[in-house]
């Protein structure tokens, strides 16, 4: 993005990727109470938080492929929270989700910046007409891709062997649970793109404030993950 120093973009990738990774680690580790045990928390993570954070950063930075970088950072942080047997698969699924985001929103006709400008110009209603259905589709596709990715790679990575019949049995579940992610996307995308109070001109934040804030925020996310999951990491 013209006007934003590349180092600021890198710092933004680390900061927002870390925040996303923290959410994945903490919310992904929550065991739902009885009755809600089958509720797919991943749908909220992908459709609400993942899509929301990626859309928001695309809005304020306007940089293509930045979100893939954030996905890599988030995946790397997720790697350090040993929840579930195949941590590598969960980490790679986050990267896959960010890649799907890039493939959707790098289309010029779906430019988040132009929708944001439209909202700022008093045409929020017109932008909503596009963003709500787009959020439904994006939330759904991002979640379904991430979920399917883990179902394919977990048996391969853990050595139990990929069985096509097992995968076929889980496909209807993946497609059905995507319903929640679609609903989350319908809220997350318009909110991340149009809420004016969230607007920040990244290029105008003072150098000192920007880098101190980014460094402190990123460090806090990593420290929290290590503090929360250290006993698991050390095998205690």
């Amino acid at each position, binding site marked *: 993005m013209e006007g934003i120093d590349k180092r600021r973009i890198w710092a933004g990738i680390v900061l927002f990727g870390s925040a996303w990774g923290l959410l994945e680690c903490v919310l992904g580790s929550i065991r739902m109470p009885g009755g809600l045990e089958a509720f797919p928390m991943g749908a909220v993570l992908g459709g609400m938080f993942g899509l929301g954070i990626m859309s928001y950063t695309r809005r304020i930075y306007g940089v293509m492929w930045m979100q893939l970088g954030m996905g890599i950072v988030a995946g790397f942080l997720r790697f350090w929270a040993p929840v579930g047997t195949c941590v590598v698969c969960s980490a790679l699924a986050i990267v896959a989700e960010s890649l799907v985001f890039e493939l959707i929103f790098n289309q010029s006709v779906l430019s988040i910046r132009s929708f944001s400008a439209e909202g700022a110009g008093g045409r929020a209603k017109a932008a909503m007409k596009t963003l709500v259905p787009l959020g439904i589709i994006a939330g759904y596709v991002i979640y379904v891709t991430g979920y399917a990715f883990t179902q394919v790679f*977990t048996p391969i990575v853990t050595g139990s062997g990929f069985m096509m019949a097992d995968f076929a049995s*889980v496909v209807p579940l993946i497609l*059905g649970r995507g319903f929640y992610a679609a609903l989350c996307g319908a809220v997350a995308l318009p909110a991340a793109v149009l809420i004016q109070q969230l607007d920040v001109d990244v290029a105008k934040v003072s150098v000192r404030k920007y880098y101190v804030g980014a460094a402190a925020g990123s460090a806090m996310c990593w420290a929290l993950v290590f503090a929360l999951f250290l006993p698991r990491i050390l095998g205690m």
Partner: protein
Amino acid sequence: MVERGRLNVVLAIAAVAVLVGSGITLAVTSVPQGDLNVVIVNGFEYSWMNMNTTFTSYMVEADLKEDHVIFECVLITDLINASQIQNPSQHTYVVVGSDGYEVTFTWYQITHGYLAITEKRAIFPDVAARNWVRDVIEIRIVEG
């Protein structure tokens, strides 16, 4: 360049298709595909309620998400051995959940598997928890 009005129509149609399609799929997969009160193995029905009196139960520790949980379990092999299956070690087994989720296990994996009685869940401490099966209704034999 795609005209905005046309884009909105296309997106709206796609979004409705996604919501309707996924909503119907969710509803269908939410309906239990068998009797939740029993587990069927080779035509034999075992009641969850009587599981710990029919078979010897064990307390098994396993990690479920961030929690270290202790489950009251029976051995899956006990059910298989009671079901008159010829040469049980020569087969693979598909554990089926009430939502249609199925996971195939080798005999070796089955020998390390349990049915958690209260949770009605197949647990395999050595296998990714993602592959555990919730609300087990059947253990199907795949001919070896």
